[in-house]
């Protein structure tokens, strides 16, 4: 058994680290954090090993000609619901006991399509059906690997909160009366959050008391472990990031005040289309904002939005990212970023930051990903033109130095896949015909 495990571990290690070094030469390299370099970038042992005008190719390197091409860090989506078999546990107003990691689907084709759009990392969130939703996690788009291997190692776990129309919708009829549940108003949403954290504090106190008693040698019944309250205690202890779905400025202020009162932090405000109205308060709390470039008016609370949201917040010093929240939008986040050049006049680097280093900071994974720097993960995109141009396409995607997407290979491989499928269809039809039912 031990031998087997060891072999399995070696196998993994070998796969993850066995890629030959990759040297991309003569390219325009958009590092995001250190300007633009015309030259080469070396990916070795899963990391970025060198960036410069001239980089020597180690023995056995794969050389990629980057003439006329662009290189940028892998895109990070701070709000996604791909690669899961369930999104909402909306039956209860607090569903913090549920974990997105329980329902991961590493074979969701949306992963591959996201890769083709340059996304290498995504924050997989619970839905917004309830004020306090499920536990979330950060995944790398290591297409072809299993769910465990796709988790971004060491990334801080998160939890989804939601304010406004979505969490209160279930409190309002008509529909299945059995599905009705509190809250039905924004007041109720606040109350649910307050009550949950009051409960979480009491739960923590109960455990502290139990530990103290057993330490003194007194008999004590262990408190029952409560999977709903444990993650909230982690939030209170700063061990879990809060990603809060919100739209209106009033509810944003409400949440920041509740969090300040209970002594925890909101890591990101998601959507937050009215965040531009309360930028100083957001900055003071230390929250980031993850929003859309120009997607709004799909419901009442999303009416008072402007496409300058990201730019205004950026100018005010808030860490801003653009997210997809959608398996289609996730395929062109680069073009979403480009919109901020027009709306608000962000620089190219600032625009790229919205989908790379900024979401990395929001997810506290910026030491590993989000920019092209020596020592960081080799999560790298090769484009046929400037990434912010509508005409540019992603040609290749590396994650940890391993190539996970190649546009030419994909196109070349399509007839083979088609033939494979036809053969299976034929085989299945034959088997059915031969059966007596």
């Amino acid at each position: 058994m031990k031998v087997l495990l060891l072999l399995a571990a070696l196998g993994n290690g070998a796969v993850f680290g066995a890629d030959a070094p990759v040297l991309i030469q003569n390219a325009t390299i958009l590092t995001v954090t250190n300007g633009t370099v015309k030259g080469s970038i070396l990916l070795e042992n899963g990391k970025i090993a060198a960036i410069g005008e001239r980089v020597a190719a180690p023995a056995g390197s794969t050389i990629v000609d980057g003439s006329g091409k662009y290189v940028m860090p892998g895109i990070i989506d701070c709000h996604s619901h791909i690669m899961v078999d369930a999104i909402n546990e909306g039956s209860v107003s607090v569903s913090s006991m549920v974990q997105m990691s329980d329902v991961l689907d590493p074979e969701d084709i949306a992963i591959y399509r996201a890769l083709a759009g340059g996304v290498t990392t995504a924050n997989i969130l619970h839905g917004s059906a309830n004020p306090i939703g499920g536990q979330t996690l950060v995944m790398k788009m290591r297409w072809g690997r299993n769910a465990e291997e796709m988790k971004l190692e060491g990334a801080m776990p998160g939890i989804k909160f939601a304010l406004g129309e979505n969490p209160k919708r279930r409190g309002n009829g008509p529909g299945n009366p059995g599905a009705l549940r509190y809250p039905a108003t924004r007041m109720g949403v606040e109350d649910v959050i307050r009550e949950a954290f009051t409960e979480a504090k009491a739960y923590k106190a109960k455990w502290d008391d139990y530990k103290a008693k057993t330490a003194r040698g007194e008999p004590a019944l262990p408190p029952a472990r409560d999977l709903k309250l444990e993650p909230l205690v982690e939030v209170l202890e700063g061990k879990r990031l809060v990603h809060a779905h919100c739209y209106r400025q009033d509810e944003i202020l409400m949440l920041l005040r509740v969090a300040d009162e209970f002594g925890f932090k909101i890591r990101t405000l998601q959507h937050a289309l009215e965040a531009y109205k309360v930028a100083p308060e957001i900055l003071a709390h230390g929250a980031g904002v993850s929003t859309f470039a120009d997607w709004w008016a799909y419901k009442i609370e999303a009416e008072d939005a402007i496409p300058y949201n990201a730019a205004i917040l950026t100018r005010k010093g808030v860490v801003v990212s653009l997210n997809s929240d959608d398996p289609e939008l996730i395929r062109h986040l680069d073009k979403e970023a480009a919109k901020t050049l027009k709306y608000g006049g962000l620089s190219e680097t600032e625009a790229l930051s919205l989908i790379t280093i900024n979401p990395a900071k929001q997810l506290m994974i910026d030491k590993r990903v989000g920019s092209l720097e020596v020592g960081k993960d080799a999560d790298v995109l090769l484009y046929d033109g400037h990434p912010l141009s509508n005409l540019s396409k992603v040609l290749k995607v590396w994650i940890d130095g391993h190539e996970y997407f190649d546009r030419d290979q994909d196109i070349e491989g399509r007839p083979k896949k088609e033939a494979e499928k036809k053969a299976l269809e034929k085989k299945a039809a034959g088997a059915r015909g031969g059966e007596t039912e």
Partner: protein
Amino acid sequence: MRRGAFAALYDSFMTLKAPALMIMMALPVVAQTPGSYVLQNARVVRVSGPVIERGTVVIRDGLIDAVGENVAAPAGAWVIDCQGLTVYPGLIDALSRWGLPSESEGRGGPPARGPEDRPLNASWTKAADQIVPTDRVIQRVRDAGFTTAVVFPNGNIFSGQGSVIDLAGDRAGRMVVADSVGQYVTLRTSGGRGFPASLLGSIAYVRQIYLDADNYQAAKAIYEKHPQGLPRPAYDRALEGVLAAPLVLLPAEQEIEIARMLTLARDLKRKVVLYGGHEAGRGIDLLKQAQTPVLVSLKFPVKPRDADPAEEEPLRVLEFRDKAPSAAGALAQAGVKFAFYSDGVTNPKDLFRAVRKAVEAGLKADDATRAMTLAPAEIYGVADRLGSIEKGKIANLVVADGDLFAEKTKVKYTFVDGAKFEPLAEEPAQRPAARNSAR
């Protein structure tokens, strides 16, 4: 005297060939040992050991009294010449609804507010308490060689405890071999009425219940030691139910479900068996590492009959269906314990056709037999009494005129707890959908 034994005697009287009848008439004491049979000149597939090409099996008082090449026939036994016939251990359906009333639905009541309301929970119920001995499917499958089924209540997330039952008898209590062998867990949802409304919630619920059960057990033990000065733990039948079952059955058909359930199993810290298993081939490395037994469904996935012909199916779905029959072979090759189960199929012909498919897809015939005899007995901890032809084990046997799973083979006799049955000569006309066909 047991009524069952009389029935068996009557049955034998009606069907035995002349020589055996003469023996019976010559020995008036036979009525006192009606359960004694000698199967002579048989090919004996013991499963627990090599095949005996020409041997004898002696059945007495419902048990296997002797097996071997040179076994003397005890006085007073019914002798059956099995020239050209093969004796197998009776087949076991490893996860079954045979002999149980039709599906019980989840309880009504107000929508659950969380795991604490114990939604969709009947963990304390036992299949052994629900057996319907008159269920017509019992005779149907027994005539094909099934002598035992591991039956589980269903319809809930914690559906209840499974029981090993023998497929003959007019009293439910006599049919039970083991009353609680596992807790049948499904990951169904509330259908929108309260918690859990999604797979997310169902999995979290299962995890919380087992944590609660551990806490409950610990709290009860501490309270027993110090009843004075401590609050009394509240009695909880849902937790009593999960604590009573020695195994947890978790659903895992696809590779991702296998991965998920193995992860969950590590959290539960309990002995787990997976059921479904159609993609065990793809998940074989995980299964091999975990050494978790798998119950493989004999209802292989096919394109739904009412599928939209215009809708294109993904390659992945086609592969899934194509590879399903090879799952058992992959498990056997990897040395992971597995057993077959009927998965709602009540026509034995369909089950045997599925077994043949598995053999065509790479499963060794011996392993197929084992997957329906000794393997399920081992998985459920009853291999000391069932699953192979060994002295002292329960006399559940099937006698056929050839390879049990071959299309043309006819079952001659089935023995259940030593009582002999002969299948009806003609297959009865197809009945409308059997009551228990839905799982």
